[in-house]
């Protein structure tokens, strides 16, 4: 017993040292001149905005934008940490993180709690997927009385629909589940078990090019600006990043990023994008 107690004690000490060593390293690395900014990255990856490579490093449009920002704002030292989206938001409120990037849409509830970036760095294109033979669903106004595929009860897509329901008398019927499968949802639309599915164009494109179901784009619903979310105290950081983003936009770098990842410029007008709907369609 005594020997094993000793062993346990040694192991305990070793682990404690290991843990403190980790955090010491972390401290000594920080440059004294730079202000450290903790950036939360969402663990619910969302290619091509944010996803991981084989080495579990985060890549994608969001990360490239962050690299551009790092270049523009040398006074900050950006440190990235991963967490699930909901807990990241809690962490920002609790001061654990300074900002969070994962193509956040603006929702009124979140706006009360957090500081939003004023100059969006890109746009998402939420759209309606309909059956190949469908002709009457093009926008949100066509949805009341129709059956939608199940979606997650939080996040941007959900808030588009709940916002619509708040301001219209004809309500859209929303069906929620915790972790919807996009592949299954497309199949439901193609088999006409559901009338439409709301999802982002980039997701649609990636899935449809693999599964090739009998579906098509009903219409792009809107251009949803993407924002960084900050803790309320970070006015200065917010203003600095806004300024840098505006410069990047003027230099055409954000537009170039959009072209690189989507082959289209999401900064264009929605009507222009919608008129090129057939270009956006996945070739079968």
């Amino acid at each position, binding site marked *: 017993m005594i020997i094993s107690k000793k062993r346990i004690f040694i192991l*305990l000490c070793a682990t404690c040292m290991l843990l403190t060593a980790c955090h010491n390293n972390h401290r000594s690395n920080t440059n004294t001149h730079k202000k450290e900014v903790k950036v939360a990255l969402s663990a619910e990856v969302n290619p091509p905005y944010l996803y991981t490579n084989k080495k579990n490093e985060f890549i994608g449009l969001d990360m490239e934008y962050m690299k551009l920002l790092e270049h523009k704002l040398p006074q900050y030292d950006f440190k990235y940490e991963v967490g699930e989206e909901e807990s990241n938001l809690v962490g920002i409120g609790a001061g654990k993180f300074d900002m969070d990037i994962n193509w956040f849409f603006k929702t009124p509830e979140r706006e009360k709690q957090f500081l939003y970036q004023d100059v969006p760095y890109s746009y998402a294109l939420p759209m309606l997927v309909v059956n190949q033979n469908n002709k009457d669903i093009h926008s949100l106004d066509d949805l009341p009385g129709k059956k939608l595929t199940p979606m997650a009860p939080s996040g941007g897509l959900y808030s588009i629909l709940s916002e619509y329901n708040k301001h219209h008398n004809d309500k859209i019927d929303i069906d929620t589940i915790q972790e919807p499968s996009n592949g299954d949802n497309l199949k439901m639309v193609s088999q006409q078990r559901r009338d439409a599915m709301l999802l982002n164009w980039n997701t649609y494109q990636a899935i449809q090019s693999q599964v090739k179901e009998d579906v098509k784009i009903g219409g792009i619903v809107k251009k949803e600006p993407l924002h960084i979310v900050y803790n309320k105290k970070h006015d200065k950081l917010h203003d600095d990043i806004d300024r840098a983003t505006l410069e990047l936009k003027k230099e055409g770098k954000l537009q170039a990023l959009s072209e690189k990842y989507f082959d289209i410029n999401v900064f264009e007008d929605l009507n222009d994008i919608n008129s090129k709907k057939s270009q956006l369609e996945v070739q079968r």
Partner: protein
Amino acid sequence: MQSVNWLDLLSQVLQQLPITLLMIVTSLIFALILGFILAIVRIRKIKILTPIVRLYLSFIRSTPLLLQLFLVYFALPQLLLLVHIDINHFSRLFFVILAFTLHTGAYLSEIIRAGYQSVDYRQIEAGLSIGLSYPRILKEIVIPQALRNSIPNLTTQIIELVKDTSLAFTIGIIDMMGQVKLIIGNNYGLGMLEVYIVISIVYWAIALIIQGTLALIDKRSQKPYRI
């Protein structure tokens, strides 16, 4: 649909096995220590401490582990900030291990206590009557039997801990379950089923190994008592 590369999936998931094991082993060691301390408090009925331990056990058993993890990760640093201790920059592993230790320690203390009580008090009395000291009675009579009796419950609780570690990803530690979610996310939610099958098999295998080892220990320890 593309054909599924099972081996590739498996190797991707197993990449994160070390971190899962690290969480399991360290939490288990700390939890055993905590469990012993809590069990001693309740067995010896130490004043003031006993009601506190009972309250603690009741809280741990009645709230979801996910909530406890959030409390440790988000609320504890805020609380400590009030007394000017800043632990926000600690490694996330620290918070996860702390949460799992607090959780599993509570359960283990009850298992240890049950083990102690499974030994008839008359055996202790018998020991005392022939002049053995209480520590000696514990060492020679009670603990060997108590440990043997608690092996089945211990097995269950360790396997429970293994499965609990899958919650670590909620605060961003990329363990095996985290890797699974990343694979699914990177693939736009396609091929969920295959990945879930792979991860179930991995967890199952770990559980079987633990179960097998402890069953072996159990068998060995029962040997002298078999008729």
